[in-house]
């Protein structure tokens, strides 16, 4: 069975500061993809960043970057220079051939950004 665990139900960060959201996963597959999705109050699911397991280099998208530790099965998301618009639920997800191409999601982390 594949599992994705987000151990922080809620996190808080001040504007302009940096915050890291944790995600660990378990899979027996050697090739897979990991994703972070953002869900603001509007409910829309928005892709933030994605990482292929075979790529050692950590993915980066502007202020968003990941720390991918394959041996530890860890995939954390770092948000730099946090903005009020970053406030949302963040979901970590895993996809591989075992999942039939579906995304296996974690339970999410609610991020609050304070002025």
């Amino acid at each position: 069975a594949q599992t994705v665990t987000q151990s922080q139900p809620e996190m808080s960060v001040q504007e302009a500061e940096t915050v890291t959201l944790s995600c660990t996963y378990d899979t027996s597959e050697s090739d897979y993809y990991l994703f972070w999705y953002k869900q603001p109050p509007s409910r829309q699911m928005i892709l933030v960043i994605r990482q292929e397991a075979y790529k050692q280099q950590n993915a980066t998208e502007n202020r968003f970057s990941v720390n991918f530790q394959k041996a530890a099965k860890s995939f954390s998301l770092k948000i730099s220079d946090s903005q009020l618009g970053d406030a949302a639920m963040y979901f970590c997800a895993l996809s591989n051939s075992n999942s039939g191409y579906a995304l296996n999601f974690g339970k999410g982390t609610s991020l609050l950004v304070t002025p």
Partner: protein
Amino acid sequence: DTAVSQTPKYLVTQMGNDKSIKCEQNLGHDTMYWYKQDSKKFLKIMFSYNNKELIINETVPNRFSPKSPDKAHLNLHINSLELGDSAVYFCASSRLAGYQETQYFGPGTRLLVL
């Protein structure tokens, strides 16, 4: 030019009724999905279609029946609605059926069963 659209966005109905949620994507993608997000925000796959063929059918009650008239549409029909069906239902699509593919989500349909 919405990429993945769903109708309706909100649906309030009585127990026992039958309802449908429609999904359309204009991205030219081959694969479409239905996910359910429960009251605790947990998202779980329900179905997936690739080029109008069912490829994933998770353990959902057979009161839920997906229908794909063409590869741009994947509708979800629910018979005999129950209180526990209240949730947000998301449609998504990806270019191909593959775990490397990014899935693009619709805005969700909030279903409330009274």
